[in-house]
């Protein structure tokens, strides 16, 4: 059950569109900055496969310029350790 957070940068002028695109995806929570074209994205998926699918979908979004990982956590890894 991975939890990740990212800093998402929209393409020029596409912040609102990127917020809508990300908010429309399951397992995503969108936190737009008030005063800059930057979005914080938190994902909370039920398993690794869903997570991979989600990441693939996100990277295909036309409104997305760049996505940088800020935080990652996975219950499975914790148990394995």
């Amino acid at each position, binding site marked *: 059950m991975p939890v990740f957070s990212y800093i998402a940068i929209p393409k020029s002028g596409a912040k609102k569109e990127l917020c809508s695109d990300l908010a429309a995806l399951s397992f995503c929570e969108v936190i737009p900055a008030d005063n800059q074209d930057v979005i*914080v994205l938190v994902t*909370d998926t039920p398993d690794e496969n869903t997570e991979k699918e989600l990441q693939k979908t996100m990277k295909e979004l036309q409104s997305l310029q760049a996505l940088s990982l800020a*935080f990652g*956590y996975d219950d499975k890894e914790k148990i394995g350790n």
Partner: protein
Amino acid sequence: MKLNRRHFIKCAAAGSAIATAGALFPGISFGNWQKLQNNSGMIDWQKAPCRFCGTGCGVLIGVSDGRAVAVKGDPNCSVNKGLCCMKGYHSVQALYGSDRLTKAQVRKNGTMVDVPIQEALDIIAKKIKETRDKHGKDSVAIYGSGQWTIPDGYVASKLFKGCLGTNNVEANARLCMASAVTGFMTSFGIDEPMGCYEDIDHANVFITWGNNMAEMHPVLFSRMLANRKRRTNVTIIDFATRLTRTSQAADKSILFKPQTDLAVANAICHEIIKNGWVNSNFINEHVSFHKGKTNIGYGTEDHFAFTDKAEPISFDDFKLFLDDYTPEKVERISGVSAQDIKYMAALYGDPSVKVTSFWCMGMNQHTRGTWINNLVYNIHLLTGKISTPGNSPFSLTGQPSACGTVREVGTLTHALPHGVVMNEHDRQMAAEIWDVPVSNIDPKPTYHTVEMFRALDRGDIKFIWIQVTNPMVTMPNLKRYRDGALKEDRFVVVSDVYPTPTTDVADVILPAAMWVEQEGMFGNSERRTQHFAQILEPPGEAMSDTWQIIEVARRLGFEKQFPWSQEEYIEKIWEEYRRFHAGPKHEMAPYTVLNERSGVQWPFVNGKETRWRFNPKYDPACSNGKEFHFYGKKDNRAWIWARPYEPAAESPDNEYNFWLNTGRVIEHWHTGSMTRRVPVLHNAVPSSYVELHPEDAADLGVVNGEMVKIISRRGEITMPAQINGRGVPVRGMVFVPFFDESYLINEVTLDAFCPISKQPDYKKCAVKLEKA
């Protein structure tokens, strides 16, 4: 608060990304983010206006697990720009007092018993019908307040005036804002301030007329102080009858004897004319001169009636009238030195200085309240210092929707949502929008507030429904009106959120939804309409005041006039109400716009708010092609009035030798029924007190905290003394805050009122003191 492990990890994830963004993008802000996280769990933030005073600060309310847990100022709201006062920051705690009313109660055999709210609503409808059938349409009444939301007041007016055919609709704004309304109407022919809070950022001189803004409007006062600090040419003058926190912060404090503000205002005009400081071009183009009746009485007797009559006069007549008000003559009446009068006149008269005058209850709760409003407008009109940024005569309000609900919806006996009942065209408009026969709307006003409670005492009114206010604390000469409400065949319904002295006299109590437990709108002092969504569920069976009225209206057979569903009723009511104000003078924003923004100022025309009225640079209603257009009056001019000084209804004499002045403190709002349930505020000022001048206290032989008996011709009260506290009255005056229901100071006050506005004077009556 529930916080599971998963939730915690998500908070950490979001916090980590926000911190990273903060490092990468200097100055980045997530303050507007609706789903903010902190280390106590997920908090959902939603906008609302503050619940308390008329400033209309925008707040963001943080909700977690269905409970309001945090408040912060709304940075998007231009009123307060992210700041709040202590009441605002603690406002959500007022929702959670342990004795919150959650069930309806009905008096059975002398005892209040819980009943389902639907049963209570049945009883109310049945009682209204029975009372009307037996005693006539004007035997039932509704009494609300400036705490009514706009939809609350609108449906109250529609039911009582449109459907039941009685003008027995009043609100406690009569006790706090009526003189401001009649001041605007007589001087400009249209209500509410021409300026806005942005005036504070432009003015060089602020004069507070009997207005302790430091405690009553602290966010606006702090904006004044910030301007004084930032700009080098800002002066604050406090013109008052007692020393307050405002006096302490002001550059100059000028004290006057109660009621003599009338004389001082005239003396300022005298000086302006004498020294050639009149803005002649402005006067010639935009002003006409009038006089009204004099020796107009005080309304202390039942059935008191007065109608003013305006007569045109010339500028020379006005100048002649002011001969009685030389600074030297007025010094003897007012106690204000001629030098200080000339100093204030020079500030108003200096064309290079922008002056904003602020006032609130000191000028409105005044037996010549309409007159003193007129007189301050006179000063601004003579000098042309009006309707431009920084030049502003500004009447502030005390309640969150005194303007939005009572003044704009018109929940006063003579008023309609547009215009007055006496006007045939206005009645026709109301009848058409309300879908009722025009004959339903009675062309004759009935009772203003004081007379309404006198009618209840006399038995002319048998049924009264009181919503969102606490008249059994606030009515002057209170004992008479409490005894009246308790009489055998009177039926009193009270809708409120907590038990109060008013619920004590009720036959039915309805638990009301409070503030953001319902959707609604308020309207603040600067013509700003502020929408709030329902953010929380009301407790138990508590129901919005609007919906309570709709439920009763339907039981009375008015389903056609009140057809809305609970999901959409606020939007539907707003869009219906908005039809009354169509046009450039008062156009209101559509529901969708209100929903999006932290308040919208009317007139809202072609998507633009109006900041300064009567000035064509800002106001689309101006159409005369000139620099200003005072379109409220038929002569398209603002009116200067010759109004004399007349004494108070009751002044100290040899027996009752002190003035009694009443008011508020910063920690508590109004009668304290909400703020006294907030532990932080209650503990700060747990009870009321009587402020005395130190020398009067010494003469009386009392020290701080000792009990003093205050005796008037109406009643007496014993309470602790406060000497050299935050406020210091002059010798011969005492001051008592009215927030504490344990000390009902209004049993001592006098029910004299301004004959034009019918607003009582809570600032002046005569008392004597004894050491208890």
